[in-house]
């Protein structure tokens, strides 16, 4: 299935959010997620099932003012 990962169309094989993050190379990284502009806490990633076309945002710590 295809999702929009940080604005880029991306293929994933498993619709489970936690599995998709693993597949996409985020395993173990300090990241936070939102799906279709709504925050999905880390504790709910294992039960969150993605749908085709979902907009997934994955963010990490960055410099800021």
């Amino acid at each position, binding site marked *: 299935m295809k999702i929009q990962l940080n604005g880029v169309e991306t293929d994933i094989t498993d619709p489970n959010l936690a599995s998709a993050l693993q597949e996409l190379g985020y395993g173990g990284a300090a990241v936070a997620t939102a799906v279709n502009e709504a925050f999905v806490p880390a504790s709910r990633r294992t039960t969150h099932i993605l749908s085709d076309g979902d907009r997934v945002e*994955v963010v990490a710590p960055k*410099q800021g003012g």
Partner: protein
Amino acid sequence: MVSFYGTELASRFMLGTALYPSPAILAEAFRASGAGIATVSVRREAGGGSAGGDFWAMIKDLGVKVLPNTAGCYSVKEAVTTAQMAREIFGTPWIKLEVIGHADTLQPDPFGLVEAARILTDEGFQVFPYTTEDVVLAERLLEAGCEVLMPWGAPIGTGLGLTNPYGLRTLRAQFPDVPLVVDAGLGLPSQAAQAMEMGYDAVLLNTAVAKAGDPVRMAQGFARAIEAGRLAYEADPMEPRDMAAPSTPVLGKAFLG
């Protein structure tokens, strides 16, 4: 000591982490500044990337409190979601709330700011709103649950200093018991000293240090100015007057012609 939401800090200097020439200079500038709070953000991370983790490890090494921001958010929804993500990543209820209303000036959207502050306070956040010197807006933010206010000195990144000293003095006078931080627009240490002399509790800046030719020396300069300004405020400065008044005694002056 300055206190934000019950956390006491020895330094009244809050410093941003963006725009430095290198991570090493950022770390050195922080150590030179003595700042107790570092502002940070969250941004998109590529799969397999380690930039975010590396940055976070470096900030943790500095041993300072982190204040995540919602920089670049133009809507309440965007700001709230960003704050929720930041809280999970950084493990702090503190959030520097920015809801921007105007792209050229980066002026806060007062209506969105109050709404987002209320939502986030209800969700257990401790909100540091990036606001203006508007007294009515300040009232609304306090009613929404904010226990700190951070009015701008000037638009972000301009280095213009305190463009509305009257407004900032009025805000200070109206809310004597609320921790107030001048956030944004400072370019020189003298401007930070001016804010502290007015009785502001702290200053927050980034660009003035990061974009200086020598960020480490500029961090030291700001640290000393902030301390000097605070000392002056605590020392109860003299009242200015229009007419000269000699400081050397007139009585006893020799008659010499």
